[in-house]
Each structure stands twice: as C-alpha cells, then as structure tokens.
C-alpha cells in the first residue's frame, strides 16, 4: 500500500431510504468526506460490496473502515464483515442524537435543519477517530 493510500479511511453509510437515521448516516459521511477530512475520509457505494465488486472490496480490505448505520440491522457493518473484515469503528447514527437531544433529525429525502446540523456535529466529533485510524492507531 503506498503512503497516500495508507492515509485514507473508508466511511461507509447506510443505503436505506426508509428512515431518517439512514439519511443522517449519509449526510454525516458526506460531511466527513467533503468538509471535515477531504482526501483522508473517503467513501464508496455500499451496494458495490453486495455484488462483490473487486475495486470496492479492495478499498475496504486495505483501509481502516468506519460504518455509519441507520438501524440495528446494521447493513453497512455486516456488509463489511461479510468480506471477512472487522470494522474499525462501527456506529449507529442514533448515538449522535442520544448525545445531542436538542438536535432532532426529521425527514428522509431531505433532512430538516436540525438533522443537517446534527450531521455536521457528528462529523466534527468523528474527525479525531478518522485521524487516529489514518495514523494507523486503533480506536
């Protein structure tokens, strides 16, 4: 693995379109990838793992992985585990709401303003985890 690749951390979000928590998972992932840790946090489509796409599988196997699931079925975490890889930091997005009850996310197609803010807060809080994993440390 080259040095640049070693610094990347995969952030895999729930694919669900039925719950607010799935939307929160994606928004948090986008915040990490686009705003908080661009170039370090990266993502791929979770469904690529379902069809065993070689490139997506390689990315997941070679990099530390954070999963953001929207419900206890934990599709993101289980999709990684199905490849034989242990997730470095598995998370359910309801945890963020539990820690920030003043920000109640609503909406599925589009999160409300509180949901968008919660995603920003969650991504900011996850920055340290991304940094540790990118540096090769355990969470």
């Amino acid at each position, binding site marked *: 693995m080259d040095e640049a690749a070693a610094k990347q951390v995969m952030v895999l*979000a729930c*694919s*669900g*379109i039925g719950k607010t928590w799935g939307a929160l998972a994606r928004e948090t992932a986008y915040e990490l990838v686009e705003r908080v840790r661009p170039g370090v946090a990266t993502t*791929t489509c*979770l469904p690529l793992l*379902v069809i065993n796409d070689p490139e997506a599988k390689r990315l997941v196997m070679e990099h530390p992985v954070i999963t953001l699931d929207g419900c206890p079925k934990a599709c993101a975490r289980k*999709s990684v585990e199905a490849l034989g890889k242990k997730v470095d930091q598995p998370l359910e997005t309801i945890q963020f709401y539990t820690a920030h009850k003043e920000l109640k996310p609503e909406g599925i197609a589009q999160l409300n303003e509180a949901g968008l803010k919660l995603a920003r807060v969650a991504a900011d809080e996850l920055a340290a985890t991304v940094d540790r994993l990118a540096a090769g440390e355990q969470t």
Partner: protein
Amino acid sequence: MGLPVAKVGIVPCSGEALPAGTVCRLACRRVLDKLRPGQTVAICLPLFIAGGAEERGFAARHPTITVDGCEKRCAAKATEMFSGKPVQALLIPAILEKHGIPRPTRLRGFGVEEEEAVQAVADEIAHAVDETLIQTQDQGKHYDEL
C-alpha cells in the same frame, strides 16, 4: 392460490458515492410517497446480505423494479443473485440521456438544478410500476406464482 399482486418492490441502488445514487434515492422516495403510494414498497439492497429470509425472499414472491445509478448495476445484479429476477431494470444514465437531461454533479444538497433529473427518473419508475401491475393482472399472476 395466493392474493392478487398489489405491491411492487422498488430496489434502489442508493449509491452513496455517486450523484446518480442521490437521484435514485430521491426519485424512488417520490414514487413511494407521492406518485404510487400503496402500490410500492422499498427494498433496502444491503439487507440482502444483512437481513434474513424475509428480505431475500421478497422478490421471489413479488414483482420488483430495480433502479441503478451506474453501469455496474448493483441493484439489478444483487436482486437477481439473492432473490429473483427483477421484472424491470432501470438505469438512470439511460433515462437522463433519453430525456436530454444533464447528469447531476453533486452528491447532496439537491435543488432546482437537479429537479428535472429527479422528476424524470421518478416518472419512469412510476410508469414501470403501472406496466408491471397491468402485466401481472393480465397474466393472472399471484404472489405465490411469482
């Protein structure tokens, strides 16, 4: 004999790393909530792995329409691999090309620029739902025959 088909399963790719994945989610949600409520149900694709027999068996008992954001066709392939062959497999780039609509370029924060794309895809899905229901009724198919 089973019950007449009343619901069509919609399987979106939901690709998180592609703008077309966002088009896919928003268009499917629009069909489920506004265009064909009561006639459609969403199937979460990764549940084919994470879920149990219930998710995997759905497409064996119900007609499904897959909606993919790219040529890798995760939704169509996964549905066929784990459950059953979809009755229609839609591809978003092909739909946008057919309507002469430019492909969205951002992953989130969709607004008026992307609305045309989302609506065109939603309309195609709704049309596919109608076709599927008509075909199924014409053929006299039932849940346990599909």
